[in-house]
């Protein structure tokens, strides 16, 4: 493998298409092409090595733009597949994924689950695809930006005439140019912010070279963004938990390692009111009925001072008291608590009257806390209610003759009472459930009559911590800088050369050819220098005429 030495004497890296210095075509194909491909200045972008090691093979695979595009297309297809059915994360809590997809979506759902699409974005192959895009970005960029930079740095003022002829904007004529005319053109070029280099009668005017780096700056931003996304899976960088908390409850905030506790003072849900709220709402209220105005959790944040073992009594110190509303999270440390959902009217306590069946006389009221019922409720004067059994989620009588409970949540509370009265000092047994009473040990003289129910709301709060956000923002900003750099500036060059009694003028831009032509026309106007013309356009119009 050798270097390529150009006729002009410049030594180019192996694989170079156009000499870095003078622009002479170095390959047979380049010599034959009508216009030179100037995207990478004809630089050696993928150096070929004869003894390809495994490292070179991997490198060359990822340095291919074709491979990069395929990776992006595959990722796009995969990402869209994940949106056909809901991801596992979003299916209801009380069902398992292996039955949910088949039950809900039939055979398609079963296939979806079997192929692992239910947890697509966390699957190895999806992460591998995204990671490959990252690798491809790095290698593609390195493999192009370095030779391009080299080629632009090494470019000579006097380009070979063949190079000039194969530029899109080109003109030539017999004769020479007066030095004062060159001087005039230089002046106007400088006015248009061109940098000018001269070498024995040849001239190179160039501006906006930095716009060529736009795509690479853009890629750096993307890579930083990907790094930020990657860091989300690192412990401690990203927390996204849900906390269901009842009114009055104080619970450890998940994701804070037991450092913080939260008390739900009360949950508030407000609707728009026709009477109280501004008139502008009345039409909408009439049309839609009830419209929610506010979801709010009045909360107190505590820090656990002893941060002892799990299960140990926490030593809570109040940090702050705040109302959490939708889009108005409570912020502390690096965490934020967002109002996310709610469930209203969970039973909290039930009140019964101990009543004499015959006289319909109420002896006294018993209020049972459904989360912490007591053994005995003493009503005085020889009246007492003993709680023999409590079944918070009553589900009928079991095989052993015992009442059963489905769960520890008071969805359908039932009680086995022993009613003690002066007439029955040993008590009478009564079983009381919602809309159902039983007297398993024979008819009783007293009963527990349901009188009242106390309910409370449960608030669902999202616990969020995201230390990767600034990295994502930085990546996004750099990405945008690259986009702006590449789109709002153009890299424009003008070559003027006099050789063997002929004047050659060529120009190149990486975009907006029309703009370049207009700029040059106004600069070269009124001089004897021929204004470069768009060879591609004249060729096309020539074709059309034929």
């Amino acid at each position: 493998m050798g270097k390529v030495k150009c006729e002009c004497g410049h030594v180019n890296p192996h694989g170079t298409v156009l000499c870095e210095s003078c622009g002479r075509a170095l390959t047979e194909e380049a010599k034959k092409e009508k216009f030179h491909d100037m995207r990478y200045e004809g630089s050696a972008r993928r150096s070929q090595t004869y003894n390809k090691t495994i490292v070179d093979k991997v490198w060359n695979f990822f340095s291919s733009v074709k491979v990069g595009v395929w990776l992006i297309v595959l990722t796009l297809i995969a990402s869209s597949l994940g949106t056909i059915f809901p991801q596992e994360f979003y299916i209801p809590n009380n069902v398992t994924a292996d039955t949910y997809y088949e039950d809900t979506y039939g055979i398609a759902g079963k296939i979806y689950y079997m192929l692992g699409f239910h947890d697509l974005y966390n699957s190895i192959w999806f992460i591998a695809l995204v990671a490959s895009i990252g690798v491809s970005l790095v290698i593609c960029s390195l493999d192009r930006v370095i030779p391009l930079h080299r080629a632009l740095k090494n470019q000579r003022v006097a380009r070979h005439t063949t190079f000039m002829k194969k530029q899109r904007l080109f003109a030539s004529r017999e004769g020479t140019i007066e030095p004062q005319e060159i001087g005039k053109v230089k002046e106007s070029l400088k006015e248009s912010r061109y940098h000018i280099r001269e070498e024995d009668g040849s001239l190179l005017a160039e501006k906006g070279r930095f716009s060529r780096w736009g795509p690479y700056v853009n890629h750096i931003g993307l890579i930083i963004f990907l790094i930020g996304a990657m860091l989300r899976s690192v412990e401690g960088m990203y927390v996204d938990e849900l906390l269901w908390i009842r009114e009055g409850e104080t619970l450890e905030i998940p994701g804070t390692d037991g450092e913080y506790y939260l008390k739900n003072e009360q949950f508030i849900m407000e609707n728009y009111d026709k009477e109280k709220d501004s008139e502008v709402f009345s039409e909408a209220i009439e049309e839609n009925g009830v419209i929610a105005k506010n979801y709010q959790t009045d909360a107190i944040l505590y820090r656990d001072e002893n941060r002892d073992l799990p299960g140990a009594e926490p030593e809570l110190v109040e940090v702050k008291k705040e109302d959490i509303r939708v889009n108005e999270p409570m912020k502390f440390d690096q965490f934020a608590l967002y109002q996310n959902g709610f469930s209203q009217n969970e039973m909290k306590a039930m009140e019964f009257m101990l009543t004499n069946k015959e006289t319909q006389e109420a002896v006294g009221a018993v209020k049972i806390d459904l989360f912490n019922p007591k053994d005995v409720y003493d009503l005085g004067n020889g009246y007492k209610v003993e709680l023999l059994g409590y079944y918070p989620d009553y589900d009928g009588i079991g095989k052993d003759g015992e009442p059963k409970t489905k769960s520890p949540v008071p969805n359908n509370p039932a009680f086995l009472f022993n009613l003690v009265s002066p007439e029955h000092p040993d008590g009478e047994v009564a079983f009381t459930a919602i809309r159902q009473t039983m007297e398993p040990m024979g008819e009783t003289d007293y009963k527990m009559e349901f009188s009242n129910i106390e309910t409370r709301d449960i608030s669902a709060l999202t616990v969020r911590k995201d230390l990767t956000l600034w990295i994502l923002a930085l990546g996004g900003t750099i990405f945008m800088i690259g986009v702006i750099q590449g789109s709002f500036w153009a890299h424009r060059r003008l070559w003027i050369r006099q050789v063997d009694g002929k004047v050659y003028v060529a120009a190149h831009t990486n975009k907006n050819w029309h703009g370049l032509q207009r700029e040059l026309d106004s600069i070269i106007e009124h001089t004897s220098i021929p204004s470069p013309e768009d060879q591609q356009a004249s060729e096309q119009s020539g074709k059309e005429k034929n």
Partner: protein
Amino acid sequence: MNKKKKRLIMRSVILAVLALAVGYTFYSNLTKEARGNLQEGDQAPDFVLTDLSGEKHQLSDYEGKGVFLNFWGTWCEPCKEEMPHMEKLSKEYEGQVEVLAVNVGDSELQTKKFAEQYGLTFPIAIDSSKEVQKAYGVNPLPATFMISPEGKVEKVVIGGLVKENQVRALFEQVKP
């Protein structure tokens, strides 16, 4: 030649850095699920709970003895089935293997009534804050963790232990 070598080294270094980043991403993503889920062989997380009679039990106090750590609830049918075996064997292995039953979600009344009904004498604690349950990653009940005298999780059993022999084998496993 020298240049070629330099490039090879350069490329190898860049590829190694990329491979490292990708490898770490895989590692942290794949272990995300397992995090918080206790596995056999792990050190058992220490905790402290107060039992129904008001006595404090800290796991590390049991060092030198095996521990049969059982998470249960009164509503859970299979939990009821294994309780008598646990009661019987806790007496048999007294001083060698301690049974510690952690109730998840019930009120004190229910737990007490249950213990009375089944005649349970081993310590029963209510994990009202659910912190211990979380530390052990317990979801379906019952869940039993066999903890060796050195404080390691020897075995995790999710689901009911129907036969006495099963329970006996577990006791034998962590006997000092």
